[in-house]
């Protein structure tokens, strides 16, 4: 058998990207990001239990540009992992596994992530401004 006829594994530099595979790796990336974000949740809770000095440190960090950027990334990751996680749970029931459904579901997840992120940050700014 000539080597050229052998099936090749995806060659990442020239491989055409697809929505399904991109969403798949993003689900994992978002999960890892959320694990880091969960440390922030514990820091916030422990600081609130510790007193004003510790709580000031958390507030200073979350109010900084880096803090706000991380919070934004964290909300995007959360809504994405949430929407795509529901897509995974639907797949676990054996439904929606054909090619067309995976693309429809994929775009629904992308749209849902955008809309939920937008709503959350509009509400955040509205609460902050009031």
């Amino acid at each position, binding site marked *: 058998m000539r080597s050229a006829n052998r099936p090749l594994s995806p060659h990442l530099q020239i491989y055409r990207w697809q929505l399904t595979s991109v969403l798949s790796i993003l689900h994992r990336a978002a*999960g*890892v990001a959320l694990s880091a974000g969960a440390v922030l*949740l514990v820091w916030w*809770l422990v600081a*609130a*239990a510790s007193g004003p000095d510790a*709580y000031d440190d958390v507030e200073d960090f979350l109010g900084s540009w880096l803090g706000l950027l991380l919070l934004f990334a964290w909300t995007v990751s959360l809504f994405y992992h*949430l929407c795509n*996680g529901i897509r995974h749970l639907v797949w676990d029931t054996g439904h929606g596994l054909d090619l067309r459904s995976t693309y429809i579901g994929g775009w629904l997840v992308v749209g849902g992530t955008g809309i939920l992120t937008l709503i959350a940050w509009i509400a955040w700014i509205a609460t*902050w401004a009031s």
Partner: protein
Amino acid sequence: MRSPLGRAVGLGSAKEGVEHWWLQRITAVALVPLSLWFVIAIIRLVGADLDSVGDWIGRPLPAILLVLLLIATYYHASLGLQVVIEDYVHAELPKLGLVIVVRLACFALAVAGIFAVLSIAVGMSS
């Protein structure tokens, strides 16, 4: 080639069944309402000072939901991170070491968060 006992127990060479997969799904289902509740609650707390944040954390319903959120989050995270490590770290010793470190860290962080919530709640009611 499986023995009758092996077939009855239903476990393969991994020596375990579907617990990992199943618990990942159970915690995922729990996290759908819990994480949505948490985001809404946090947005309502934007701009609040420590006193009002503490008052909120210590109330029964938020305290209970926060503890449940911490348990589900860190259980789900430890299962997910374990799979990521097992997929990308191939050498046996670093893989085992990382899995142990991550799972212990998840357990410790969950305990820290739960203790913080309980101490705020107990401090308020006493």
